[in-house]
């Protein structure tokens, strides 16, 4: 017996034990890594960590440290799961849960037995499923909505609500992807609370028909919640294309819930799904089966334990308004939330512990593994009777072939660097710059036109300045960045939609973990190269609050594209002919500073909130242009909305400070303005950096509004005349690292709260000041 991390590539093995504890262990069990399951290492990241596994026909990446907790036994071939066929027929279920087919609504509901909701009752449905199974695609089809769909697990980070097309009485909520109902993550806890809420009338559980065994693990837990539900088998077209099939009627009969085969992307079976979902919700048809344990399985240890616990807690579960089967299973798994909700007496807790201990001894597995095994045993038996397995899917084989190059030991990082360089080059130079210039010129022309028109109307100079300088100059300069932002998002969403982002997270995890981040952090950090605002927002896909916070705080170290004009301006003035070198040095310096800060942060606060890196690697797919275009329109609207709210207001404030003196008289020389007064107070702080001129400070203050305005302010105030090569260097470094713009700070505030946003302003300024001072000293010695 060896540990999984030491298994050779391609060697099949059977899992003997799953060690470890807490969240990671429950997560591994939930992902199908249970004792008895077949597993194979199919690849390793270039640095050897994490490793890529094949479990139940899908690819999963896992860190070596986590894999070391799993003991496996080598075997000659991947084991076929033996399954007896005794879960299938249940005459009672069949006779009492006959569900009307399509067009047969009401057939089985005589007036004596039906218990429908009042006709005017609102039908609130929840859409639940594991990550990357097509929930958001289905949500969009059901509601006609345009939510972003990605080929990266965890795209849905907000619960979205919508009305099902043609059914105004219904509401459907797209819940985040979850692997189980155990409280590993906030999403899982929130999702189950949402489903259990009294006004949630029904549930659509969407599963990937091609990976049905793992997806049914969540289904069984959802059924235990005793909420009316429908099972939607998504991607049936792909399954059929690969020679597979599912006996839907048989599965429906065994599970006791309506089962509908659909293709969300192909819009197949949607009408039938909606009809079933509304029917079960309206007639309050809960799942007819919630008992998945088998009295003949390993002597029935789990079965007897579960039913004993159910009897013991029946009254507590009723008082806590929790389904008793769900409460008993979660109690055995050790769910603290359920334990608190049940308010058990000490004696009852002791009794339950004794029952569990006896079960563990008899079954030979610990509590969590025993429950996971019970569920997977049922699933295997169910699939043995109802699923004609497809041959290894074309999509999977194609992905494996592509991965040999894109995640290969020697090719992964060079290809990644080349792709990113190409994206930045295309975004900023080839396509973005001309478009930005065009838009900028258009806005300037409009400003000039408005200025001329106001001049002809003899409008007061102050009002003219307000419109031309503040609105067209300030807001307009930010709006002119729309093409760059759109292009960057276009390329990044293409990468995400194709499934490549998940691979990047996979092969950079090893490096990022050393500085206290997760592989998933790479996505927000890369987006931060374009603009910190979407970079900060993209951190939502990180599963733990700890990783999310660290990633957001490090995003400003990825120099955003709005700072490029500053570098270009100062380089051309002080380092003519060496602009490219200056740019590369600055980017590398920022990344180095970020790494140092991350390492220091890790030493100061080691935190235990880092989430385990268990990432499903989706098959490569061709990006759907419809999705990409939806994302682009969303981002554009979002960006413009911000430009005309936060940035507009901030521009007005800066303009007032810049245009008037303390007695509110309009100034002819900016050095008399309130802004100059404020900047003059702060200027001494910059004297050690050689930047004690109030005009430099004013330019830096204006950069808080938008980085682009640093250049315009410097030009307006004639800053370059007061600078030398020696002082330009610390100024470049300070601009590189100091506080992000107000839009980015607003995004941080939204994601982490006001105190973290405030912390970021101060922290970035301190880091920038220290770095600029060090660089100034070094430059002083060399020049």
């Amino acid at each position: 017996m060896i540990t999984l991390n030491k298994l050779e590539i391609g060697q099949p093995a059977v899992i003997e034990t799953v060690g470890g504890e807490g969240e990671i262990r429950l997560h591994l069990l939930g992902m199908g890594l249970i004792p008895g399951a077949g597993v194979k290492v199919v690849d390793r990241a270039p640095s050897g960590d994490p490793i890529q596994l094949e479990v139940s026909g899908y690819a999963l990446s896992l860190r070596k440290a986590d894999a070391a907790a799993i003991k496996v036994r080598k075997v000659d071939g991947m084991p076929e799961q033996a399954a007896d066929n005794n879960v299938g027929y249940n005459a009672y279920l069949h006779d009492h849960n006959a569900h009307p087919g399509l067009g047969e609504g009401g057939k089985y509901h005589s007036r004596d037995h039906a218990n429908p909701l009042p006709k005017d009752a609102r039908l609130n449905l929840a859409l639940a499923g594991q990550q990357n199974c097509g929930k958001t695609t289905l949500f969009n089809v059901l509601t006609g909505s345009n939510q972003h769909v990605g080929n990266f697990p965890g795209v849905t980070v907000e619960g979205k609500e919508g009305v099902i097309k043609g059914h105004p009485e219904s509401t459907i909520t797209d819940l985040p992807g979850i692997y189980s109902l155990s409280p590993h993550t906030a999403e899982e806890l929130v999702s189950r609370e949402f489903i259990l809420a009294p006004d949630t009338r029904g549930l659509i559980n969407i599963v990937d028909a091609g990976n049905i065994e793992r997806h049914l693990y969540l289904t069984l837990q959802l059924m235990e919640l005793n909420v009316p539900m429908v099972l939607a088998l998504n991607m049936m077209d792909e399954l059929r294309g690969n020679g597979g099939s599912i006996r839907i009627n048989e599965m429906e009969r065994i599970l006791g819930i309506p089962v509908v085969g659909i293709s969300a992307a192909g819009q197949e079976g949607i009408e039938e799904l909606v009809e079933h979902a509304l029917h079960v919700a309206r007639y309050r048809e809960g799942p007819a089966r919630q008992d998945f344990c088998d009295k003949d399985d390993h002597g029935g240890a789990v079965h007897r334990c579960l039913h004993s616990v159910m009897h013991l807690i029946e009254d507590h579960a009723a008082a806590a308004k929790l389904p008793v089967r769900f409460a008993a299973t979660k109690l055995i798994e050790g769910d603290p939330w359920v334990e608190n909700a049940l308010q058990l007496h000490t004696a009852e807790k002791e009794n339950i512990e004794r029952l569990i201990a006896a079960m563990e001894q008899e079954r030979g597995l610990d509590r969590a593994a025993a429950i996971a095994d019970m569920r997977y045993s049922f699933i295997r038996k169910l699939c043995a009777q109802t699923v004609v397995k497809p041959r290894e899917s074309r999509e999977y084989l194609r992905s494996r072939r592509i991965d040999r190059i894109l995640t290969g030991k020697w090719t992964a990082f060079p290809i990644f660097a080349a792709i990113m360089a190409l994206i930045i080059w295309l975004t900023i130079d080839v396509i973005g710059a001309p478009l930005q210039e065009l838009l900028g010129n258009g806005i300037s022309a409009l400003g000039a036109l408005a200025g001329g028109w106001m001049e002809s109307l003899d409008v007061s100079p102050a009002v003219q300045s307000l419109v031309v300088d503040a609105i067209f100059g300030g807001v307009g300069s930010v709006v002119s960045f729309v093409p760059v932002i759109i292009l960057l998002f276009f390329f990044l969403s293409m990468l995400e939609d194709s499934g490549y982002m998940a691979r990047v997270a996979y092969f950079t995890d090893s490096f990022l973990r050393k500085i206290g981040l997760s592989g998933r952090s790479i996505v927000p950090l890369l987006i931060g190269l374009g603009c910190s605002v979407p970079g900060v927002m993209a951190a939502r896909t990180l599963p733990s609050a700890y990783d999310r916070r660290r990633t957001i705080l490090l995003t400003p170290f990825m120099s955003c594209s709005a700072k490029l004009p500053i570098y270009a301006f100062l380089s051309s003035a002080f380092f003519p002919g060496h602009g490219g070198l200056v740019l590369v040095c600055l980017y590398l310096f920022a990344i180095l500073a970020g790494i140092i800060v991350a390492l220091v942060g890790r030493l100061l606060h080691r935190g235990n909130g880092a989430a385990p890196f268990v990432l499903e690697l989706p098959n490569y797919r061709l990006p759907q242009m419809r999705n990409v275009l939806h994302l682009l329109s969303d981002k554009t609207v979002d960006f413009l909305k911000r430009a005309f709210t936060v940035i507009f207001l901030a521009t007005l404030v800066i303009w007032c400070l810049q245009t008037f003196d303390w007695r509110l008289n309009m100034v002819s020389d900016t050095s008399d303005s309130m802004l100059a007064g404020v900047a003059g107070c702060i200027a001494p702080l910059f004297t050690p950096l050689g930047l004690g001129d109030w005009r430099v400070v004013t330019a830096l203050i204006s950069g808080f509004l938008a980085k682009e305005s640093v250049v315009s302010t410097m030009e307006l105030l004639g800053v370059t005349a007061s600078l030398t090569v020696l002082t330009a260097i610390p100024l470049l470094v300070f601009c590189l690292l100091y506080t992000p713009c107000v839009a980015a700070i607003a995004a941080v505030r939204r994601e982490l709260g006001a105190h973290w946003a405030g912390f970021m302003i101060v922290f970035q300024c301190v880091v920038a000041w220290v770095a600029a001072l060090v660089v100034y000293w070094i430059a002083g010695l060399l020049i």
Partner: protein
Amino acid sequence: MNTASLVILALVLLGAILALVKIRTDRRKRRSCCNGCAMRDCCAAERRGSGRCP
């Protein structure tokens, strides 16, 4: 200050007020009951008054 100046100034101020209202409305919508929780915009359960934020 002539009428044209006053009208333009009034329009800019109106825009500023609308921007402020929009910012406040958005903020209220996503009242941060669930800082640190991945379901942004205030978790749906909390918003519907049927659950609590973890």
